[in-house]
């Protein structure tokens, strides 16, 4: 079910992150797998950007790369990730290790996919909150930490007295995800990355987590980057949407462009996989074929084997990114001659 809401208009277009030509690869016995293949992207202050795509499209890796914590055997092979914070331009990939450590969470925090495994099972919630603050601010008193933690737990609608004493296994999945969200907000980060924040949860819990996130967006006004394949979440919260396929951006635009005027056949196909509000018996259209094998990518446009509009050129040359309007980017050879229409939902 998709339901578009009026978004706050962005008046200042001041980037907070500039990702430039980022490449992330994993070294595996089958060879080098490029999970992110030259992504360039700007994230603007105060906006909510959604990065959507199928499993294996490199969107989670992109999220991890933004904190420079891609786990082994992955590594960032090229490009830069520059944060524009407090009037300084900092490429996190160039920072010395100790400065990186201090930079993380304070400037950019992340809520992870698996609510169930994101918390250390042998430490109480309070200890995991406290060690986070303490490793960034040695002089803070326990009372100050407690005050702050309590406030944040109220914000995510949890009872601090009950939660702080508990071990992770004593909390439900939804509660653990709320704890993670509170934990992510602990150091007042400028940017919050949320990797599939609702995927591991049941529908009702998803709904209430979404309410919490909307509330946070309204109250704190921070820059949020959602990484998800949940398009209904995007419709509800996004200002802009970036669509990834096989490690590259294939389309980027504001939420209306992407939902109503997609220009890439993949985005178009993605929109058709979502049920409409107006009819219940209409058929859904799954995207034919399966996501490409990242160790053995097809030549040319990576989507061409699944694309109904593919021509000769598509299998030979990989299309370059092209700005259609100052805010709408697409990488497709045929964007000019195709008219892809999505009916109102």
């Amino acid at each position, binding site marked *: 079910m998709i339901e578009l809401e009026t978004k706050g208009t962005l008046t200042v277009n001041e980037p907070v992150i500039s990702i430039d030509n980022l490449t992330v690869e994993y070294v595996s016995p089958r060879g080098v797998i490029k999970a992110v293949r030259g992504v360039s992207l700007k994230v603007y202050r105060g906006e909510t950007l959604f990065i959507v795509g199928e499993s294996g499209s490199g969107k989670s890796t992109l999220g*991890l790369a933004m*904190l420079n*914590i891609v*786990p082994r055997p992955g590594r960032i092979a090229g490009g830069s990730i520059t944060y524009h914070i407090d009037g300084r331009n900092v490429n996190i990939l160039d920072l010395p290790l100790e400065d990186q*450590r*201090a*930079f*993380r*969470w*304070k400037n950019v*925090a*992340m809520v*992870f*996919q*698996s609510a169930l*495994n*994101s*918390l*250390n*099972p*042998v*430490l*109480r919630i309070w200890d995991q909150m406290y*060690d*986070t603050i303490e*490793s*960034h601010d040695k002089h803070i008193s326990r009372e100050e930490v407690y005050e702050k933690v309590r406030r944040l737990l109220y914000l995510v609608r949890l009872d601090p007295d009950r939660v702080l004493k508990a*071990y992770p*296994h004593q909390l439900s999945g939804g509660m653990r995800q709320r704890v*993670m969200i509170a*934990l992510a907000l602990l150091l007042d980060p400028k940017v919050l990355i949320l990797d599939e924040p609702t995927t591991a949860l049941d529908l009702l819990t998803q709904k209430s987590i979404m309410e919490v996130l909307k509330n946070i967006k309204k109250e704190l006004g921070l820059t949020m980057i959602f990484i998800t394949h949940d398009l209904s979440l995007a419709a509800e919260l996004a200002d802009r949407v970036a669509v990834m396929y096989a490690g590259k951006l294939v389309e980027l635009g504001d939420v209306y462009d992407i939902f109503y005027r997609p220009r890439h056949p993949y985005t178009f196909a993605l929109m058709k996989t979502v049920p409409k509000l107006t009819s219940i018996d209409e058929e859904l259209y799954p995207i034919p074929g399966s996501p490409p094998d990242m160790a053995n990518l097809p030549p040319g446009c990576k989507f061409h084997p699944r694309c109904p509009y593919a021509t000769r050129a598509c299998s030979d040359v990989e299309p370059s990114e092209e700005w259609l309007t100052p805010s709408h980017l697409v990488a497709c050879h045929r964007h000019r001659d195709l008219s892809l229409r999505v009916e109102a939902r």
Partner: protein
Amino acid sequence: MSLKNLLRAVLGNYLFKRALRAFGIIVAASTITFFIIRLMPSNPIEIFINQMMSAYGMSYEDAKAMALALFTIDLDKPLHEQYFEYVTNIIRGNLGTSISISPGTPVMNVVTAFLPWTLFSVSISLFSSFLLGITLGMIAAYRRGGIFDRVVSTVAAVTSAIPGYLLGILIVVFIGVRFGLINYMRGAYSAGLTPGFNLPFIVDVFLHLAAPFTTYVLSTWGGWMLSMKANTVAVLGEDYVTVARAKGLPEGRIRTQYVGRNAMLPLFTSLAISLGFIFGGSTLIENVFVYRGVGRLLWSSINARDYTVMQAVFLIITISVVVSNFLADLIYSLIDPRVRVGG
């Protein structure tokens, strides 16, 4: 609270139930050993008679008369009567007297002469081996696929595949004999030294410990190392470790509180079980180095069919293993909040 409720509370108590079960296991195990020991071919008197006949050329009758005068045990009694006697003695705290190893000496004295050496040597070796194994295992996991990992893992697999006593013999042959250190590979201290808390004696004790210590550590560290490596690799892949990195925690804290603690949890059970065997000594290794430990005592009492000593040693091993398993459960529930003692 009425007596009935009190009784129910006590009987329903987890600790009480565990203790009761532990006691049952000890009774069952010692009963079984009592009978199995007596099912072994030959008996202490036969073996003594044979020794006397071959060593001093005594006639069978003379040797038998001597044995009967020396030994207080009457093996012609029906088994169930012997068993009944054994149980009543144990309840009175009497383990009986040694039959043939050192006839007439209370078993308690025999055992206490050997037990401290085993406790000393095995506990030092066990903890060293454990610490060495988990440290190297963790380093190897952090550098998995690298040179360090490959070399250490291969060596660990090889050394833990060789039985301890063989390693001991190799040490005796290649180090003891070649470098003239063989005197330090016999017994727990040099003959002629009087045990006491003086420097020469303590140095001598540690020099004698070196060979069995090395053997024990070499044959057991690999197991600890390989399982610690596997656990650490698994924990490093857990999301909470990635979260800890993202949170900007110092690497040292991640290593101890996030990776180390979680990776070590499963090893605590194995460690606690091994603790039980500290009391049993390491029979084969102690034998190679003629070390004055419970393991060696067990070996010689089996050879001499010294029933009472064997019973005592097996009883000690049974009790310590059962008790350490019990403690392992309790400690595990303290260090892993997910495991609750209950029900």
